[in-house]
């Protein structure tokens, strides 16, 4: 047993910190700290800075422009980025489509698409879910019918994150209705500018616009946009869902949010004393800190196995559940810490003198509501439990 990082890993951490100090703009970090939305430009600028350093495509091998990191290095990078309130790397092109093309794409697709992901020419979004196909993704209905050397696509995708910024979408579509539902699915790339693609915003409960509906009406795409084999898209979908899940536990984000909670509890006064000295509240903060410490080690154990080449198994489902529950618990305590002052909305438009909480807490209530999504997407926590239970009770 050795819970410490190696000297090389510690040196790497120092490099990441130095990079963040030099490259992360104070304004973007401020927005992150205050739970304000980032603009498309903010995200693109951050990608460009990472790309210049060769650190953007964290899951790609070196020969395709990735940094060639181990799972542990990736973790250190993500942790330091979270602690510094750097934007999250938009995952769709970089951490989803990229690995899919590397494994299932052909050379033409790789050489055309990967460089455009790296240099920001394309912004990809993920067209998996449909109104009728959420947890039961395999029941998806969007049809792609072959017509000469084109597919004609009709149907609807939904919950498309940041689709409003995207010029491309990768979709799971139905190319066959024969056999089991999983057997007739294909993985197809679509240009959002193609006639017949229409995007409509969905407003979330926090008032924000981060997801969309995407409608397809007689959308024609060349057959060369198929990735892998026709009707074998489910294998790709599963690969994406089980394999390239980086940072599933969100340890860095939780660590950072817990720091914010502690700092707020020292600044906010309740019942005549700082909230940090309120025994009931302090006990809740400590309990979530204990949970986080345990999960940190659980996460390191998985990373260390991954570094040795083990495929992430049920541990990743467990970490998804525990990680999201802890993140949501911290968000909930931050909201609680604000007391009556948790309510003004939209908080970022308030004049300073109307606010009775620190600036970095003003958006915390909206963030709490928004982060209910953590236990819903990426395979809901119930679906993760089903996965674990299926294995546990296998006869």
């Amino acid at each position: 047993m050795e819970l410490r990082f190696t000297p090389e890993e510690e040196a790497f951490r120092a490099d990441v910190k130095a990079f963040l100090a030099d490259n992360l703009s104070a304004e973007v970090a401020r927005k992150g700290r205050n739970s304000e939305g980032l603009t498309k430009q903010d995200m693109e600028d951050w990608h460009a800075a990472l790309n210049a350093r060769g650190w953007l495509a964290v899951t790609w091998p070196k020969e395709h422009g990735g940094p060639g990191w181990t799972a542990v290095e990736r973790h250190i990078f993500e942790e330091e980025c979270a602690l510094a309130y750097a934007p999250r790397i938009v995952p769709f092109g970089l951490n989803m489509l990229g690995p899919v093309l590397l494994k299932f794409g052909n050379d033409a697709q790789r050489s055309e698409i990967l460089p455009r992901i790296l240099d920001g020419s394309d912004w990809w979004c993920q067209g998996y879910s449909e109104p009728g196909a959420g947890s039961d993704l395999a029941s998806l209905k969007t049809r792609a019918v072959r017509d000469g050397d084109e597919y004609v696509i009709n149907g609807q995708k939904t919950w498309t994150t940041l689709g409003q910024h995207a010029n491309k979408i990768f979709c799971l579509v139905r190319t066959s209705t024969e056999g089991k539902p999983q057997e007739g699915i294909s993985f197809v790339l679509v240009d959002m500018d193609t006639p017949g693609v229409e995007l409509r915003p969905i407003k979330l409960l926090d008032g924000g616009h981060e997801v969309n509906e995407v409608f397809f009406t007689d959308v024609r795409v060349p057959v060369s946009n198929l990735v892998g084999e026709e009707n074998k898209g489910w294998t790709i979908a599963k690969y994406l869902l089980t394999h390239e899940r980086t940072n599933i536990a969100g340890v860095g984000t939780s660590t950072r949010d817990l720091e914010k909670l502690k700092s707020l509890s020292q600044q906010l006064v309740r019942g005549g004393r700082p909230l940090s000295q309120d025994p009931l509240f302090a006990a809740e903060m400590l309990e979530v800190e204990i949970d986080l410490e345990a999960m940190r080690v659980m996460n390191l154990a998985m990373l260390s196995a991954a570094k040795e080449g083990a495929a992430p198994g049920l541990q990743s489902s467990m970490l998804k559940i525990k990680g999201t529950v802890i993140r949501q618990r911290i968000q909930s305590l931050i909201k609680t810490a604000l007391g009556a002052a948790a309510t003004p909305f939209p908080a970022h438009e308030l004049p300073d003198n109307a606010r009775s909480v620190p600036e970095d807490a003003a958006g915390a209530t909206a963030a709490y509501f928004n982060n209910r999504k953590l236990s819903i997407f990426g395979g809901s926590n119930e679906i993760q439990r089903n996965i674990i239970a299926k294995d546990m009770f296998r006869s």
Partner: protein
Amino acid sequence: MDFKLTEDRQMLSDTLRRYLADQYTFDFRNSVIDTAPYHSTEKWAELAGLGLIGAFVTEEKGGFGGAGFDLTCVFEEVGRGLCVEPLLGAMMSVRATAECGAEDLVEAQIGGAQRLVLAVFEPEGEALDLIRTTATKSGDAWVLNGRKSVVYGLPGADGVLVAAKTDAGLGLFLTKDAETLDYAMIDGGGAGEVILDNTTATCLSEDATAIIEAALDAGRLALCAEAVGVMQVLTDMTVDYLKQRKQFGRPIASFQALQHRTVDMAIEIEQCRAITILAASKLETAEAGKYVAMAKNLIGRTANLIAEEAIQLHGGIGMTWEYPGSHYAKRLSMIDHQLGDRYAQLYRLMAA
């Protein structure tokens, strides 16, 4: 033992339920929450016309209700209808002014001519002994100095009742001259900050600690009843949705893991309903503070649980602005923040 509402209360409750269902639809509600005063002045006048404000005051003080159950039967419907009208502030105000013996003011409020709000708490917390705002007499008039935070119903109010320190203790003052900063609340409705800078006011009572505490307890009880109404609707919506929503070729309601969680929600609502009845039955007694604190603690804990479970069980749909359930969940989740959260209530109980 009799757990039925009296005929009068049942009638008030039915009338209000019908009125809100017809006149205060979800779309209507959402059309008023974005712009000041963050409620509908027209609907406010109609609600006063239905006799709601009068129901908050006893007959001897000029109303026609005033008991704990009068409050709970109104506010449970307010919760069910997700109504954002500033009833909480108005209810606390009319009771406080009635206790101060300000008959004209009470009449004006009951008739709907004046809408007042109660401004007690300050940025540093929800306890009367933390109040710093002062009232000083200058000649015949009084002047107030200090700041009040998150005053419910402030936008568009006709006057503010301010709790301020006097030589005699904690007084209650009415001002129409305060500087205010209004905002919308994340769960609907309006609130704001009151800035008192040598602001002139009239004195309703120089020593109103007991009156203010009683008004706040009535407010907490009202919030409990409102929460019960919100919880009930939200849980019903969840059950309906689980029955309709199909995944894996069957209604997701057929998954026992989800059934059990919904059943737990229903059990917790019954607990909340029961403790709210208990608190309502004690409102006019010396033990009001104790039982209201118990109710508000249990409601605060359960409200968060039910809000989170309802969203989770709905999946993505529960996260959308368009779906009414998300607004019920937000309202529920914010009830713990009002007039002292679950911890504040525990501290009251420990101190008693």
